[in-house]
């Protein structure tokens, strides 16, 4: 096994430039007082040769877990606005941020974007529209618009600061409404739009403490959870009533 890996390593030339990464945190704990988070991504370009030719670009992406979504459009029927057509999208990330050192089009070629799925629209896959829908792209744009407005999709062009073609850093904001899961984090190093090095890691976003306990209970013991909710409700109702009669006497 070991000789196979060694052989593979020899077969491919080592990249002239390599990315070395640091994250302010590789775990986000959702506690009761969780109100969003900011991740500080920093790193350096490691190279053993002189700085090569071409424009250097750094791209940082963070993607939350992908789930299928349905996008519906309202139309006026009989004087009121109702949902008429819908488009199903098989996979769209619940959160996606792209931070770049310059305009995305300048630091990444169209071909590389297609291959590595970096831009926001390229993350949205398998759009299946019924025959009645002629403009499926309008639905995809709507999804992007809605999620951009809520801070769940972010395109941060020029927000990666690069010093001396070696050190880079950026800050990416995670909104308060965050779903649990592994947030896939990718760093791309580009020269004239071509990716020369990439690094992948994951930020673990999970509920802790009371949040975790309640969430697991509601999924694993729904009857117990329901009864507990009712007991709290009844107790609170009785408590308030008793407290008020004491106040009156």
């Amino acid at each position, binding site marked *: 096994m070991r000789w196979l890996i060694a052989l593979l390593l020899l077969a491919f030339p080592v990249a002239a430039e390599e990315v070395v990464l640091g994250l302010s945190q590789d775990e986000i704990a*959702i*506690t*009761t*007082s*969780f*109100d*969003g988070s900011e991740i500080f991504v920093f790193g350096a370009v490691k190279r053993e040769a002189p700085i090569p030719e071409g424009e250097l670009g750094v791209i940082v992406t963070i993607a939350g877990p992908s*789930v*299928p*979504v*349905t*996008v*519906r*459009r*309202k*139309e*006026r029927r009989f*004087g*009121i*606005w*109702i*949902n008429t057509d*819908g488009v199903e999208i098989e996979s769209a990330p*619940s959160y996606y941020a792209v931070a770049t050192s310059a305009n995305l089009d300048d630091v990444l070629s169209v071909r590389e974007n297609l291959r590595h799925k970096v831009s926001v629209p390229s993350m949205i896959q398998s759009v299946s529209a019924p025959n009645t829908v002629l403009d499926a792209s309008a*639905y995809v744009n*709507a*999804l992007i*618009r*809605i*999620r951009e407005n809520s801070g769940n999709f972010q395109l941060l062009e020029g927000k990666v600061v690069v010093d001396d073609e070696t050190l880079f850093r950026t800050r990416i904001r995670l909104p*308060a*409404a*965050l*779903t649990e899961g592994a947030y896939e984090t990718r760093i791309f190093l580009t020269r004239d739009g071509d990716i020369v090095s990439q690094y992948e890691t994951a930020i673990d976003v999970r*509920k802790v403490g*009371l*949040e*975790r306990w*309640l*969430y697991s209970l*509601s*999924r694993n013991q*729904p*009857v117990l*959870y*329901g009864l*507990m*909710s*009712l007991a*709290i*409700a*009844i107790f*609170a*109702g*009785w*408590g*308030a*009533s008793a407290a*008020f*009669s004491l106040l009156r006497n």
Partner: protein
Amino acid sequence: MQIYLPIAEVSVNAFLLLGLGGMVGILSGMFGVGGGFLMTPLLFFIGIPPAVAVATEANQIVASSFSGVLAHFKRKTVDLRMGVVLLIGGLIGAALGVVLFNYLKAQGQVDLLVKLCYVVFLGVIGGLMFIESLNAIRKTAKGGAVPTRKKHNWIHKLPFKMRFRVSGLYISVIPPILVGLCVGVLAAIMGVGGGFIMVPAMIYLLGMPTKVVVGTSLFQIIFVTAFTTMLHATTNFTVDVVLAVLLLVGGVVGAQVGTRIGVKMKAEQLRILLAIMVLLVCGKLAFDLLVMPSELYSVAAEGGH
């Protein structure tokens, strides 16, 4: 103070929720309505996912109704026998309502139908109550006696008659069961206790005295919403207990205050205030349906939210 809700998966201001709970609680105690018809749309507005809002609201109504009904038990203004009859219909209706809700959700039309239900029910009931109460107040102001509502109608010709002593009625059990059933369906699909329909139905259809109506309505709402809470908790996993606790802390205190305000007011005044509020909510919902929304598209993630 921001607080993260474990099931809704959003972060909201705790004081905002306490305040909303308190306001709606006061109304709940005054009118014997659960307040869900106000709270559920308010929760949508502050960004709680609709499925979570509907389920959690049911749980919160249990608390405010329980708090309210205790005050009514002390004053002996609960018709237990009538409550139980209404409840039988209510539980059947709630089960039907959850089935209907899940069917409509699959069709993508649940929002529209829920809103249309609100507009139609709130509009008709609010309008009728408003006119009736206004007439009653006018007659009292003129110095005439308050007219007693019609004692005999088609309802008195139905079989299976039963005596309801507290309400002073001797009527068939069929109308109360039907009223309970309709309210149960609405409770499940709209995330409301159904008091805003139950109260007028008891006054105008069953001919119960207003003072007994509030306590009896609260009594049966406790059980119907408790049943709905359990159904949502076990099938959709959408009851957020943290959200419920924040709402009900404000709610139960408000309900106690409201009950005491309600005692000091005349029945006609109580009814006209409830009518105005019902009409306001109805108008707001109708407005939203008729005016072109700023965002024509909506996103629904599969799997609950």
